[in-house]
């Protein structure tokens, strides 16, 4: 009779840990990563290794320098490095990768208090930083299967769409498999979709954000131009699908409940289309995500569920 133990709640604990979630994301990212090495060869591998390595090392060094608990083990730095690496074009230089990863980890994440306290997605912000800082990080490079196996800087499908002549656009199948100029990891839609299915099946991410995001871009492009083919190209071009799956689903920087996530994804879609069709930059995916990251706390406040019969205006 004396075998009853008294303990405080919580009594039921889940086995889901940060490192398990991050490991799932890495598994989901491995297919686009393999695709990028197939499409671009060794330069892609070099970018991936550099970004992941420097992201982990910068987190390690920052935690040592500030005497914080070591958090490299939760794999989040590796994920940030990998997401950043895959969103860069193949001609970005190694030292630029190091600067970008270090910026993403130290300035965007660690200075704000580490994982869970950052207000913006480290990978998306790191990409914007590189994009603004270096001309190389903004352009696109042709794959090994184009231009006689030479990796040369060439116009991305988005830049071609911008000219509105549509000449030189890759076929839809090439777009789907990633045989087009652009960043190394965002080309192969097939690999990204498999990663998306894996993440949803493992319940790491919810399906709403990517689907609403991509759907908004598709519908708005269709309405603005009235051309179905144009809208399909808009969805497949640039980093849209990639960012919708891997950047817009970050737990820390997006709203937590379903309605909030829907508003977030909708906002991302609208801003992306506005930048793509009316802005001076060819692509606006990372900017859209960054802007909506900043708005996330306000979306959260608007979409907070109130208890039944609760006071509507929760001002003090």
């Amino acid at each position, binding site marked *: 009779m004396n075998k009853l133990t008294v303990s405080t709640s919580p009594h039921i604990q889940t086995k889901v840990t940060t490192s398990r979630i991050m490991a799932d994301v890495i598994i989901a990212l491995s297919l686009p990563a393999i695709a990028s090495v197939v499409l671009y060869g060794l330069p892609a591998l070099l970018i991936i290794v550099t970004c992941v390595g420097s992201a982990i090392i910068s987190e390690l060094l920052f935690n040592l320098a500030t005497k914080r608990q070591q958090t490299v083990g939760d794999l989040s730095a590796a994920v940030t490095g990998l997401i950043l690496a895959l969103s860069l074009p193949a001609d970005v230089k190694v030292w630029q990768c190091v*600067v970008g990863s270090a910026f993403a980890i130290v300035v965007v994440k660690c*200075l704000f208090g580490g994982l869970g306290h950052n207000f913006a997605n480290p990978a998306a912000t790191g990409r914007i*930083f590189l994009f*603004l800082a*270096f001309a190389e990080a903004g352009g696109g490079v042709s794959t090994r299967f184009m231009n006689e196996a030479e990796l040369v800087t060439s116009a991305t499908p988005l830049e071609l769409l911008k000219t509105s002549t549509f000449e030189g656009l890759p076929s839809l199948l090439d777009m789907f498999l990633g045989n087009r100029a652009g960043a190394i990891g965002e080309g192969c839609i097939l690999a990204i979709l498999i990663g998306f299915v894996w993440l949803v099946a493992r319940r790491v991410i919810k399906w709403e954000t990517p689907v609403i995001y991509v759907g908004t871009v598709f519908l708005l492009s269709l309405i603005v131009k009235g051309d179905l083919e144009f809208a399909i190209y808009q969805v497949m071009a640039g980093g849209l699908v990639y960012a919708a799956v891997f950047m817009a689903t970050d737990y820390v920087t997006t709203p937590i409940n379903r309605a909030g996530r829907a508003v977030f994804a909708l906002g991302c879609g609208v801003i992306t289309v506005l930048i793509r069709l009316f802005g001076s930059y060819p692509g606006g995916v990372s900017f859209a995500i960054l802007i909506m990251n900043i708005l996330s706390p306000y979306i959260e406040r608007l979409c907070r569920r109130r208890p039944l019969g609760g006071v509507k205006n929760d001002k003090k």
Partner: protein
Amino acid sequence: MKNSKLMILLRGIIMENPVLILVLGTCPTLAVTTSLKSAFYMGIAATAVLVCSNAVISALRNIIPDTVRIPCYIVIIASFVTVVQMLLEAHLPEAYEMLGVYLALIVVNCIILGRAEMYARKNNVINSILDGIGMGLGFLLALMLMALIREVLGAGSFWGYSIPFLENYKISVLAQAPGGFLVFGILIAVMNKLTEKRGGVKRKSFSCDGCPSAHLCNKTSCNELTELAANDGEGEVKADD
């Protein structure tokens, strides 16, 4: 006086640095720190105006009617800015061209008006001049530090001369506007960290305890502000130009 003369002079440099602690004069700080040269000229010009205007405002502090003091300060400051502007145009045309509109904008520089309101109108001429020199030096040093980071890393040069190795590895975003905000934010964070240990106070909450100018201002008005801020639901007061 509680504070020795030396303290008045030195306070502006670290513990009450106008840019990094009081967060005043943000506009010129962000605009002219793309190169060391323009930051240096800006710092010197603003210091000259600050010292002169502090001296005159302090000397006239019993004559200027309280109700119209701000317009009076502006007139005094604007006269000195015009003098500095003309001197620069005559003797240092390079600096005059480099600073452009920001030279005239010294008139609305928060540091100068802030020190007039916070210090010069309550203290004697000698102390006000010392305060002006200290604050001016603090402004100059903060600008130079920011410009050093932005020019060396962003443009790969030092005082206009390119650095052999770094030139190939420049991070041009630091020389642009977003980089200005980035460097500014990081410097403020570092400064807060450094002054926290040396008897500084945490500036997380808005109160007299956290205010670097608390020893100069009369507490009642600050408490009124605190109540106002609490009623608005705002935790912090933001300084702007």
